[in-house]
Every structure is written in structure tokens, then in C-alpha cells.
């Protein structure tokens, strides 16, 4: 089960990563990763601490400080984006909700959301803002409050909402469950399921493997900078090795 089950072999992937190597100084964080995401899919990347999950997302979205030490190719919507600056990649329709949320702490919740829509010029911004408030009602209550004073769960919803305000074609989520109470984790995964139902393409990094595999179509398992397994999420969820290592079974 090493080759991912290609969901639609005749189509070209929305995102295609080939032989990606990333180095932090002398430390090799990624040792040649291949990864594809097709339009409409939810793909998850699972792995332990330090496996290279965030490095993968940061290199794809261009936000990494280490772009000089990147080798390999990344193609998004048919264009080579490796080493492109993050703001250009964001303008192509990729929204990265980073690990640790990274909301703008001094700005209000609403200002944060509006910054998500910074590049948009269409007339749907106001209705999309209302849609985010409908999706996460707690944000509507906190709209005037500085984001830095919000709880972790509220900040996570704000970070996702901010990403959605860009009206992305492709959403990167880095450990959206990190540090959240179980009930709030449920809310976040409910939101991901809903986004999937709406047809959004998502690349989800998670340590909560059970939950991630339950929502994803396909999955990659990352260990010390290499993909050690990949395939359909249901297959991986039933694989004995995966169950032993990541599902606590």
C-alpha cells in the first residue's frame, strides 16, 4: 500500500509535490516527499512530533524562512510555485491556516477576518463575513474583541474563518485541534466536514489520526521527513501497522 490510490487518474492534481527536500541548517527536515491533492479532496498528513508536517505545509505555502534550502518541485494549479513568496501563492487562491493559529492579536476578530479578504475586490465580502459568523457564532459575539484576548478554541475558529474569507480554492490546515478541549475539537472537525461537503479542497495536517482519517479521502503518513505510507484513508485506518503506531490500537 505504498502508491496512493489515485482517485481520478485522468485529471491533473491541484497540488503536486515531487521529491521535496528541505534543510534547516544541517538538519534535514524533509527527505524527498511526493504528495498529490486533487480538486475536491480532503487529504491528511499524519505523523509524530518533528516528522516534518508543518515544514511540508510551510514550504508549499511559501511561508517558510528556509526557502533557500528547498529542493524538488511544487506545482499548484499547473504553475511551479516552489520558492515563490507566500503573498503570491496566497493570491493564487491558497489559504494556509498555520500551526499555532497566528491571529493578529491586537486587531479585533472582525479586522482579522477582513484581513483574510485583503486581496478580494468582489462584492460578496460582506455576505461571506456573515457566512463565517453563521458557521462560527462565537466569532460574531467576539467581533469587536482583540483576537489576542480570545480563547484558544475561539482563535482557532478565527484562524479558519480568516482563511475562508480569502475565498480559497485550496485550504491548508495545520493541526487545527492543537491544544483544544475535546468538545472544541469536535466543533473544529464538524466545520472541516462541512467545508468538505461544500466541495472545498483541503490538505489537513493532524496528530489526532483517528479523526483526521475519518474526515479525509486519502492520507500520507510522515516519519522523520519521509512518506512511509499513503493510500485511501479507510485503508490506512484499518492497517494494523497504522493502528498500532498512530491510532493507539
Amino acid at each position, binding site marked *: 500500500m505504498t502508491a496512493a490510490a489515485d482517485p481520478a487518474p485522468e485529471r491533473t492534481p491541484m497540488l503536486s509535490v515531487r521529491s521535496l527536500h528541505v534543510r534547516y541548517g544541517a538538519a534535514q527536515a524533509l527527505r524527498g516527499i511526493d504528495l498529490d491533492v486533487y480538486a475536491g479532496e480532503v487529504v491528511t498528513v499524519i505523523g509524530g512530533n518533528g516528522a516534518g508536517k508543518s515544514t511540508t505545509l510551510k514550504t508549499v*505555502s*511559501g*511561508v517558510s*524562512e528556509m526557502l533557500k534550502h528547498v529542493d524538488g518541485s511544487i506545482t499548484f494549479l499547473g504553475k511551479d510555485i516552489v520558492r515563490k*513568496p*507566500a*503573498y503570491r501563492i*496566497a*493570491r493564487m487562491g491558497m*489559504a*494556509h491556516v*498555520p500551526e*499555532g493559529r*497566528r*491571529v*493578529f*492579536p*491586537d*486587531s479585533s476578530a472582525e*479586522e482579522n477576518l*477582513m*484581513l*483574510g479578504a*485583503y*486581496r478580494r475586490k468582489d462584492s460578496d465580502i460582506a455576505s461571506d463575513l456573515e457566512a463565517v459568523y453563521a458557521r462560527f457564532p462565537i466569532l460574531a459575539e467576539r467581533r469587536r474583541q482583540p483576537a489576542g484576548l480570545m480563547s484558544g478554541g475561539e482563535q482557532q475558529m478565527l484562524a479558519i474563518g*480568516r482563511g475562508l474569507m*480569502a475565498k480559497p480554492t485550496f485550504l491548508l490546515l495545520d493541526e487545527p485541534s492543537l491544544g483544544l478541549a475535546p468538545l472544541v475539537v469536535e466543533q473544529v472537525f464538524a466545520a472541516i466536514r462541512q467545508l468538505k461537503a461544500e466541495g472545498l479542497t483541503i490538505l489537513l495536517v493532524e496528530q489526532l489520526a483517528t479523526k483526521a482519517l475519518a474526515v479525509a479521502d486519502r492520507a500520507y503518513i510522515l516519519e522523520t521527513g519521509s512518506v512511509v505510507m499513503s493510500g485511501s484513508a479507510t485503508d490506512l485506518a484499518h492497517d494494523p501497522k497504522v493502528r498500532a503506531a498512530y491510532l493507539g490500537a
Partner: protein
Amino acid sequence: MSDVTQIAVYTLTIGSIYGLVGFGYSLIFSTTRIVNFAQGTLVLVGGYLAWDLYAHAFHGDVALPIILILVVLLSALIGVLVDLVGVAPLGRFDPRTNVSWLVTTFGLGIVAEELVRRYISDSSQTLPGLVHSLPLFGSRRLPFGVAVSASDVLLVVVPIIVVVLLEVIQARTRLGRAFRAVAQDRQAASLMGINPTVMVMIAFALAGALAGLAGVLVAPRLNVRFNISVTLGVYGFIAAVIGGLGSTRGAMIGGYLIAFVEAFTGVWNPFSSGEVYKPIAVFIIFIAVLAVRPSGLFGKKIVEKV
């Protein structure tokens, strides 16, 4: 002249200049986390540019306000040059561990000063007041016998207008919001599609413009001379740090505070000659404020991001 009014006039005029220069430091610090050591020199450059335009290019027949506008625009360009030559080429760097910016900004300040010496003038010059009279305000005597000129009024009013205007732009406009986003989290801002390089360039342009403005406004009072770059550079920096680097109104408040301390020391001093003790008093206040509030009066703690 009454001591009280003398102190008040000094505080409001010189304090606002310290504040303008400090505001420049703050703008650059908040977007880049570096201190632009060329900032003081840009004040001097602004003063000499104004004098040169006044005395040579236009032979004194162009209204000084037009010269002011020209100098502010030129200074903004010089600010951008400092960024393009001294800071942008350093790439994405961590300003805490990679301190090349210290050398490049300081070095560019020296270069700019030497260019002024070589091509404009190497001695003190005087620039007449920007305006000889303002509507509703000629040069007049206030109660207590304080003489206040029209250019002093500009010195007090223009910086306040500029700072308020920039604060409103930051809070209300799309560009201002993008600027604040970069100041809060440069990487997260770039994920919003904001180009941080452009915002940093805007910060340098504004800081240059503010320094040039300060140089022209202060000229009728302090003349156009070389040691102004050190005085205003250092005091502007202290104003920004006291106010909280990164806070806009903080720099202004810091400027008024240290000008007040200077004026106060000059007037009420247990020792006879106040001049010598002014810098000492300023540094004591500087250290006292930092001891109580390490991130300045209006500064926020810089939270380290993981």
C-alpha cells in the same frame, strides 16, 4: 519671560520634533524589528536640502511651503533608498541574531552626512521661518511676555496633525490595516496576500518624510547644522523607546516628556548652569521609565512566537 511659559513653549515645540523623529523609528521598528540608525541624519539632510533649495535652486523666490513639500518628498525617497540599499538586500533575517542592519543603517547615515558636506554645505546655515505670519496669527506676544513666531506655531501644530492623520490612516484604511498586520506578524500577513516588502518600504518612506519634515520645521529655531543629526537622532530614539517602540502616539508623548525634562532642568536647577545637566536629566528619566515599564509607556510586551 516667565519660566512656566518658557518651559511650555520649549516642550511643545522641541518635544514635537523629538516625537516626529521618534515616530519614524517606531514605524520602521514595528515592521522590521530593526532600529534605523540613519534616522537622525535624515533630519539633517532634510534641513540642508531645504536650505539648498531656498538659497540656490530657487534663489529665495519660491514660497517656503513649496520647498517644504519638495523636501518631504525627497526625504521619503531617501528613506526608500536606505531600505533598498541597506536593509532589503539583507533578505529575510532575524534582526536579533543577524545585526548587519546595525552596520548598514549607521553606515548609510555617515555616507549621507558626508554627501551633504561635500555637495551642499559644510557649515551651519539659517533658514527663515516657513511663514512669516499665519492667518489669525502674526508673530505675537503671549501673556507673560513670551514671543511666539508663526513658525513656532507650525512646529507645534504640524506634527500633531501629521501623527493624528497617520493614526487615522492606520486604523481606517485598507493600506493601514495591511501595515498593522505586517507589524503584528509578518509571516501571517504574507499568508493574507499582503506583500511585506512593500509595507516595509512604505515604513521607510514615511520615516524619511517625517525626518525631512522635522528638519525643515526645526530649522528656524535650531538652524541647519551638523550636530543636529546626533541630538535629534538620539533624543528621537529615546522618545520612541520611552513611548514604546512601535507605538505611534507613544513617540509623541515621549518627545514631549523629554523636552519637558530638558526645559525644566534648564530653568530650575540646583546647580548654576543648566545646559550641562539637561542630557543627564533626560537619561535619568529614560532609565527610570524603562525600569518601571521595560516596553515603554504605550508599548506592548513583545510576545515571542513559537
